[in-house]
């Protein structure tokens, strides 16, 4: 093995040896200081947008990636969160700090309703049912004058601390970043808990999961509700970010496809999938708009190439590399028998890490 490989292996081993809380603490420090690295307000705005999309994508990853339930209505849930928060703060004068949790809670309740069809429907049929919800929510908003109809809902106030308006993108980052961080950590904790294992069992085979004593309906519903909490929270955060304007077209099918792409490109079922995918797709979408004639081609090609070379997304690719490196290291210490599971267990947080084309070579 060449020298660079040794260095990388040692670095990877050191990172792997870190206590998870140390890694999370390090990530928090980096995220907290990130605004120091941006050059202007536009890049700060993009950071805020990335954080909101992280919340949205991590939420979708819970229901789709962890529990294997197709949900094409995720942006509709975000719309419900956004409009609930907007109505509470503009029509009822409620501060952001109360509107955000209430909107999140309300969206969670709607998520429970959305989850009910998953008891009997799967795959394309569940996709159609949730798609119906998405379109009906958007259409309802589009014709409801109280919600601004197709003109849009404006003048949504930013968060306030005393008399101080947190309406700059810099200040807003310190609201959205901790929420995105906590949201990702919660998803990580869920994935490593009994609930996460139940989700994954249902994803792999719901009949086998039921036979093993897992209450499939309960966990399916739970996945939808948790996912809806994330969507509602992301919607509320988007609504209160300057300029405080939301429009039903922000929650259309194109947006839904973009959010699904975030999760797929990042890696379905991988804890970092939503995070990496949200950052990447948000930035690519922003960048490609300057080349409007080729925008969709560029966007599409990047996605196709990513899928061709990283079929399980970037999260899956990184997991596979980590597992392979660990496997190679363990093989150096002893025989291959019995070490694969050790390598997988140590390296792969996402349950899908060693399936299909990502299996250890």
């Amino acid at each position, binding site marked *: 093995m060449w020298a660079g490989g040794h260095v990388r292996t040692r670095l990877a081993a050191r990172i792997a040896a870190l206590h998870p809380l140390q890694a999370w603490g390090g990530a928090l420090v980096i995220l907290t200081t990130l605004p120091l690295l941006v*050059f*202007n*307000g*536009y*890049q*700060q*705005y*993009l950071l805020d*947008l990335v954080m909101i999309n992280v919340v949205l994508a991590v939420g979708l990853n819970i229901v789709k990636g962890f529990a294997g339930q197709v949900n094409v209505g995720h942006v509709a849930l975000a719309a419900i969160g956004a409009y609930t928060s907007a109505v509470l703060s503009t029509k009822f004068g409620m501060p952001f700090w109360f509107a955000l949790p209430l909107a999140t809670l309300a969206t969670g309740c709607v998520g429970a309703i959305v989850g009910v069809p998953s008891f009997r429907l799967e795959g394309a049929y569940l996709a159609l049912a949730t798609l119906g919800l998405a379109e009906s929510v958007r*259409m309802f908003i*589009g*014709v409801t004058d109280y919600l601004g*109809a*197709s*003109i*849009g809902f*404006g003048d949504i106030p930013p968060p306030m601390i005393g008399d101080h308006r947190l*309406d700059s*993108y810099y200040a807003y980052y310190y609201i959205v970043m901790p929420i995105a961080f906590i949201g990702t950590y919660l998803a990580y904790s869920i994935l490593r808990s009994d609930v996460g294992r139940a989700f994954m069992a249902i994803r792999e085979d719901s009949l086998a999961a039921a036979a093993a004593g897992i209450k499939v309906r309960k966990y399916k519903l739970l996945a939808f509700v948790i996912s809806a909490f994330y969507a509602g929270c992301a919607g509320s955060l988007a609504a209160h970010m*300057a*300029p*405080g*304007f*939301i*429009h039903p*077209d*922000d929650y259309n099918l194109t947006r839904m496809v973009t959010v699904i792409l975030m999760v797929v490109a990042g890696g379905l079922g991988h804890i970092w999938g939503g995070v990496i995918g949200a950052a*990447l797709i948000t*930035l*690519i979408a*922003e*960048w490609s*708009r*300057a080349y*409007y*004639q080729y*925008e969709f081609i560029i966007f599409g090609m*990047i996605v196709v*190439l*990513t899928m061709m*070379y*990283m079929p399980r997304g*970037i999260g899956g*690719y990184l997991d596979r590399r980590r597992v392979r490196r660990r496997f190679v290291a363990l093989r150096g210490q002893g025989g291959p028998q019995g070490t694969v599971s050790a390598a997988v267990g140590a390296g792969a947080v996402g349950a899908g890490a060693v399936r299909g084309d990502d299996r250890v070579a």
Partner: protein
Amino acid sequence: MPLKNTRVALAAAILGLTFACATASAEDGVIRVGMTLRMIVENGIKYGQMTRDELLAANASGGINGHKVEVILLDDECNAQKGVANANRFIEQDKVHLIVGSICSSVTLPLVEITARAQVPQISPTSTARAITEKGSAWIFRAAASERYFAAVHAKYLAENVGKKVAYLYTTDAAGISFATAYQAFMKDTYGVEPVFTAQQQETDVDFRSNLLKIKSLGPEVLALAGQSDAISRIVTQALEVGIPRKVARVSASAASNAPVPETAGDAVIGLIFSAAFVCTDPRPEAQAFVKQVGEKYHVRCPDHDFAQAYQTALIVKAALAKADLKLTDASLAADRTAIRDALAGIRDFQGVVPGKINFCADPTPQCRDGNRTPILVEYVKGGKEYEMKQLATVTFEPDFGLKK
């Protein structure tokens, strides 16, 4: 290992492309204009390019007052979130002196908040929603006619010449709703008349026959229909199919001036009346010169009022930039933006390609910032690819027309 190398190259390419947007430089001595328009439909692309070309044309003759003009044109797809992102990029990264946009009211509205906060002048070429200039921003200008004028011109004409029994059928997009709402409000406020029928359908609907059959049974004198161009052509075609006679006047919003309406509806479009800011059969020499120029350069036989208003906006911007005293350094950015705003506010009786003269003034009120007060009324006299129109009326309103006292 070629596969591994490919993956590394791909990852590097993605990251490189992703962060390419992070690099920016604001050159001194250059007037920077940010344009956010809907660049996803053929017409939108063409008039976006035309507006950019018109501004850049100044560079061929040494720039404006010796200053080179740089235009950054981004697509917003008529999506508010994308328009907001574009505006943030223009203001914070590209350090533009002026923003042109957007086409759609639903994008222009949130941009008004952003430009007011950042104190950057903004001029909208075609957005008609009245709220845009009613927000009280000192930084917004509208080159288009406001919907308060558009609604009145056809409502008054039809009420006095055809009748007051109006049935409304429109789609749920902003254009459809604002047309129908403004028309209904005008009829109620002016004549005390309620609609004989009103119905909304989704903008993606293709079959309007059931509502049209109900309308037929009610025998209205006017059928008011609105939406985007494809919905308008479907409604006029299906109205004939279900047997609504041609004597029932058909009236629509300015989207009816878009070429796909007469081209796809064929002769069903004959008799369709709409209010607009410009018609390509306008005999004035400046209008015909514009039509000829667009035909030769952009291969559009009959530019609609969106083309004309976008071009007019470029002319207004050039006139304002020529009048503004600009230093064009990093340190003078705020002062330059204020100078351009003041120069725009000083535009008086500006005659471009649209029939109406453009007037702005300093107060942040609709009276001062709705520049074009002259809508025209147009009727199709022939459909198909070689469609023809005639101008029925031209009305210039007072600045405070349609505003709440």
